[in-house]
């Protein structure tokens, strides 16, 4: 068994559905130091993804590219643009493939992380979604069992949020308020975590 368009489609449905309860939470997290739109933006972006007929795509790469294209027409926010960059990266990496073996997911996540770093001109350790991607990539590296990956991914998210919570932000709007950001979750990292929990089918840990 490997990652197919079906796997991707289900993941997107789950991510989309999770936003019902998450929109306000993420808006509130972003409002603390930013402009309060992370939840609204992500809800719209995931709804846009869910509306894409990924199953009609000839291969995984095309499916990811279709998502990237639809997303690019939907938002230009920082996080949204990084998500779209992620889709493009995954699309290029899987172009022509109908399957991706589970043990390649870690490497794909690492590639996404690197592309997001380039696009966002952000370093590791700046307390952004990129640190979340980094933790995820390292934690699932080499794993090949979907359920194990799901558990490891969720655990990585719990851990990375905890690791960074008391560190200052160094990128994005929150950078301006590095001190104030101590004790707060980065909205992008929190969003990644919540979506991973939803996709993995894990119960959402209580974050605060």
């Amino acid at each position: 068994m490997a990652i197919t368009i079906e796997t991707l489609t289900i993941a997107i449905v789950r991510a989309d559905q999770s936003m019902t309860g998450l929109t306000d939470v993420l808006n509130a997290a972003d409002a603390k130091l930013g402009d309060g739109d992370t939840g609204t933006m992500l809800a719209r972006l995931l709804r846009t993804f869910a509306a894409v007929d990924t199953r009609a795509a000839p291969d995984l790469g095309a499916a990811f590219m279709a998502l990237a294209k639809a997303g690019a027409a939907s938002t230009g926010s920082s996080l949204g643009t990084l998500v779209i960059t992620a889709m493009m990266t995954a699309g290029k990496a899987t172009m022509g493939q109908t399957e991706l073996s589970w043990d390649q997911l870690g490497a794909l996540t690492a590639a996404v992380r690197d592309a997001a770093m380039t696009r966002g001109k952000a370093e590791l350790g700046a307390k952004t979604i990129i640190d979340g991607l980094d933790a995820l990539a390292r934690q699932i590296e080499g794993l090949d069992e979907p359920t194990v990956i799901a558990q490891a991914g969720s655990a990585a998210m719990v851990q990375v949020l905890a690791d960074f919570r008391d560190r200052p932000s160094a990128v994005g709007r929150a950078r301006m308020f590095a001190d104030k950001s101590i004790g707060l979750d980065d909205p992008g990292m929190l969003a990644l975590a919540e979506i991973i929990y939803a996709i993995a089918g894990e119960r959402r840990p209580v974050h605060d």
Partner: protein
Amino acid sequence: MKKLINDPANYVEEMLDGLCLAHPGLKRVGVDRRAITTANPIRAGKVGIVSGGGSGHLPLFTGYVGKGLLDACAIGNVFEGPTINSCQDAIEAANGGAGVLCLFGNYGGDRMNFEMASEFAAMNDVDTRTVLGTDDIASASPAEADKRRGVAGLIFAYKAAGALAEGGGSLDAVEAIARKTVERTRTVGVALSSCQIPGATAPNFTIADNEIEMGMGIHGEPGIWRRPIRPADELVDEMIAMLLAERPEGATRVAILVNSLGATPLEELFILYRRAHQQLERSDLRVVRPLIGPYVTSMEMGGASISLCFLDEEIEELLAAPADCPFWRID
């Protein structure tokens, strides 16, 4: 928070339709019709000036498309950068064959999308330059001035660059004047009450009935301090002192913008302006071309910002040049 709107999902679409219906000199272009440009195409050989950003700041950004100002503008959802497509559409609309200056506020999403759009433009042999508005002195120290957010003062750069482009300036020259104007422009704002993103269930921030926040950004980003409200003159004195702390050497003349963030009425802006004018003259700065009104807003946010553009001869002349857009006109 009550709003006179329909489905929040249609907020930007309906707003842009209304804007273009009311101002037939503007038109929506592009696949998503999320770029605004002038009804008449750009003059061949003229350097194009493009801006863009999230919705919710009218008259910014789209309201400054017009003669002697912007040629086109990419517009995103409320507080979200414009999409890469919209940025491409705006650049395309502003391409008169002499290159395009992308002049917008320093925010991550806007930057990434204009960057990608510029890469595409380069593939089509359109020369683009980027100058970021970074006038909000409350958002970073002078040492990190290039990391500051762009707020109301951006319109001075629109005006100066727009006038130079209109007068036939080269892309290099237009880029340079935009950069110089940004460098000589500083803004600080004080917020009294929050706005709310259409469809969101809560305001962007809460603030006590007797409190104000100095230095707050136009999306409600935290400022420098939050304290009980004080008389307007005291607040203006503090704001002017902050702005003058970074007075460029030799500056003797200054253009000013006293701007409403949305709900603050004109009466209060004039009370603020009166004091600001006094204090600037006391500091041996001659005030020219005051702008008082809602020029860069955050929907219904309460509060005001003061922007100073420290003039030199070149900037002053360009600010005085004719311009004509729905919200700013100089003959």
